[in-house]
């Protein structure tokens, strides 16, 4: 499989003294689901913003689909920790938002948008306003927004971080299902070790201060993964291996 994203000796400093990332080298295969786990302050989000071109690197190189990243890249779309839906737009209009900015006519995308919403379990909610939905539903709508234009790369910055554990688990399986339908390349940032293992082809473990990659672990568990996967010996083994990289005071 070809690599969609290549990162070479990437470093990012904020000011003179804060090194957020140091010498990160990583390849992300096309159509892969890659998670980055690590404690707060390990530069996970910084890495994501560097790849998207929203902030410039201090040194090193990133390419996406063969092109060097020099500014915000159109091939990607983002999902944030909060759904950031526009409150004056209905769910459907929100799903169109990113496409509209790229000058795509919503009318041509209506079918796909409704399909995505249906898949996300939001069928029938397309004309609701965000405030009429629960946090989990809002986040699903924001995932639909990211998927609408079918970008090669989807960057997710702790998308389930603000949700309760139960909703989070359900949404994880939902995301697996939605990803399976299209297989866009996903870079997924999370604090949760189990979430990372359940969703990913590869888990990248990072350690903080300065942010570095400590291990890249391929996840060989068969898909689709279910709630039962959590109790498989291989899952437990992988979880223990990831946890061993991260300090004992930290919970996944």
């Amino acid at each position, binding site marked *: 499989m070809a690599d969609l994203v290549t990162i070479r000796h990437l470093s990012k400093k904020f000011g003179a003294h804060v090194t957020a990332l140091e010498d990160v080298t990583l390849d992300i295969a096309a159509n892969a689901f890659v998670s980055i786990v690590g404690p707060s302050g390990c530069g996970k989000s910084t890495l994501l*913003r560097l790849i*998207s071109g*929203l902030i410039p690197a201090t040194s090193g190189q990133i390419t996406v689909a063969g092109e060097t990243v020099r500014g*915000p*890249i*159109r091939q*990607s*779309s*983002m999902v*944030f920790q*909060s759904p*950031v839906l*526009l*409150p*004056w*737009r209905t769910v459907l209009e929100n799903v169109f*938002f*990113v*496409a*509209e*900015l*790229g000058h795509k006519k919503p009318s041509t995308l209506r079918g796909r948008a409704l399909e995505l919403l249906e898949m996300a379990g939001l069928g029938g909610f397309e004309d609701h*306003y965000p*405030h009429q939905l629960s946090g989990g539903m809002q986040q699903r709508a924001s995932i639909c927004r990211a998927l609408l234009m079918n970008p090669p790369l989807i960057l997710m910055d702790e998308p389930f971080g603000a949700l309760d554990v139960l909703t989070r688990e359900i949404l994880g399986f939902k995301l697996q299902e939605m990803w399976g339908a299209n297989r866009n390349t996903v870079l997924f940032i999370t604090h949760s070790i189990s979430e990372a293992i359940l969703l990913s082809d590869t888990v990248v473990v990072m350690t903080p201060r300065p942010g570095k990659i400590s291990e890249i672990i391929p996840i060989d568990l068969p898909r689709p993964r279910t709630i039962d996967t959590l109790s498989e010996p291989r899952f437990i083994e992988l979880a223990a291996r990831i946890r061993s990289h991260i300090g004992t005071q930290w919970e996944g």
Partner: protein
Amino acid sequence: MMKSTLRITMTVAILLAAWQYLVPYADIPAYILPLPSEIWARFLETFSLQAYNLAVTAGTTLLGLCIGVLVGVLLALLVVYVKSAKSIILPFLATFNGIPKIAIAPLLVIWFGLGPDSKIILAFLLSLFPIFVHSLTGLNEIDDDILDLARLAGGSNWQMFTKVRLMHALPYITDALKVAFPLALVGSIVGEFIGGNVGIGYLVLSGQFNMDIALVFAALLSITIFTSVGISAIGLFERLFLKWQPSRRER
């Protein structure tokens, strides 16, 4: 909603009844405090006078308010989009806000005459600041994530303005109107107090001059009707066009 309307109506009715039937026992003469029935009679008697003067005051108030909205929003836009304008406009407006506009009303009358111009300008000056501050907040306080999303999608500044900033600012501007509208009215009336021979402010003054206190109250009734209609119109606009707001009371 219905329940609260009923409660307010009941309260007002009880207060008016108390005023009507208890005040006579206190032996207060009509030239100090007329009874509601006397005020109402005077209001009906002078109805065409009230309507004419109110129309004049409403005209200067609304015109001043409209200019206030135009200039206030325009200044806010300059602050948001023109970096060099920000450092000039912000301190200037902050200082300007420190001057009680009412205090410069006599000056305005000298400069712009006894006609409607001085009233319009005073109404404009009083409404400007709240509109500027609220629209600036509304235009500026956009979630960083939304801005990032737009940058990734290749959205232009113009798109961000029409699709995000303006829409975000709308409820802030209607909130500002609820403050600025009564302020603009204060501007008009004070302008009429200081110079001129027409308008509700003038009517109040002439009532006072002639010790016609019922007329003063009748003029106040006209003003109250006007502000109620104005505030209701803003509320109606919000209900029709800003229905996506979860609750107008939350903010």
